[in-house]
């Protein structure tokens, strides 16, 4: 194993973080509905990866660990935001976006899903994780993943963004 001097970023850590970064930001953007916040949460997940790298690097699936951290952060953020909105009746101003209408429709449909179902859809159909990997990333049983997937797909079908035969 290549040794790293104190204060240096190990090559494998740097490569790992850069490799997972785009999908991490993409997944979180679908989960929380905004790029800036997604980048902020993804950066926190990367920071924790750096802090715990000696342990994370030995895991069977370091990427699975990062996904778990990222979705926990997103869920915590969602709870805090919900509480803050309750307390202060905040209204979030949406920035104008140049994206095409069909893309906006997909984002809106995904954003309408309950957070737990949204996490499952993002893990299964964006990150391409298996049922077992999704269960591991979200910290729930596989049966729960299957149930949430079924419900989420039904909701998405009802919006018309995916076909009835889906």
């Amino acid at each position, binding site marked *: 194993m290549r040794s790293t001097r104190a204060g240096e970023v190990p090559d494998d850590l740097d490569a790992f973080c850069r490799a997972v970064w785009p999908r991490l930001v993409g997944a979180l953007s679908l989960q929380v509905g905004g790029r800036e916040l997604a980048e902020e949460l993804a950066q926190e997940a990367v920071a924790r990866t750096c802090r715990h790298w000696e342990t994370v690097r030995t895991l069977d699936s370091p990427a699975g660990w990062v996904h778990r951290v990222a979705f926990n952060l997103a869920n915590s953020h969602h709870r805090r935001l919900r509480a803050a909105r309750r307390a202060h009746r905040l209204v979030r101003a949406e920035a104008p976006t140049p994206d095409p209408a069909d893309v906006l429709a997909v984002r809106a449909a*995904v954003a309408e899903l309950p957070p737990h179902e949204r996490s499952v859809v993002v893990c299964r159909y964006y990150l*391409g994780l298996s049922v077992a990997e999704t269960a591991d990333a979200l910290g*729930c049983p596989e049966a729960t993943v299957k149930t949430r997937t079924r419900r989420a797909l039904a909701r998405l079908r009802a919006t018309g963004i995916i076909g009835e035969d889906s």
Partner: protein
Amino acid sequence: MTDELSTLLERAAMRPGRDPRVTPPPAARVRMPLVAVAAGLIAVLVVAGAVAFATRRSGRATPSPTSTAAAEVRTGRDGVSVVLPDGWYRSRVPTAPWLHSPREVLALADAPIADVPHDGANHAACPSEIPEAGVDAARTGGAFVWIGDLSGGATFDPPPERPRSVADAAWRPLCALEGMETRGTTFTEGGRDLIVSVVIRADAPPEVRRQVDELLDSVSVTPG
């Protein structure tokens, strides 16, 4: 089906506008050979013995020892302290602000604990009043320890005296949390009735469990 939805999500997901900031991991602790550790220990004992002998001969009073545990965390108000294991964190604000008896003294985890809004809402993860922020931290790291003060709580029988080791404590399971082990215990020390809740990820390594036991054995209580 999966292709259709995957394609849609691929288009809908936002691309990062910047690269990640990758920081060096904390410096690993240097592992000293056992022989070197033993030699160092002997040297320290010899010096300490010589100093004690010289002090007694000179008739001066021996200075009281001061704490050398740099990582010791103390609560200023509540007089309960623990030695925080390396890589552990203490919550910046109470994780269970809705509780008054028991009242939170310390909330500790081996991953950062998110701040809980003090909005009067109950942010418990389950009926045992384990805070959600602590469970999140335990899922990220491996363990969460919550210590509360039962003083003033009239509904409990007096807890037993604190055992010599946490291994001897009367632990009981707390509410079920997916993928987690939960347990709790109460004890009395220095006239203070304390309650401890522990959440450990089911697949947490033995090192984390050892840290939890050491942390709890390090609890120091100022008589109330």
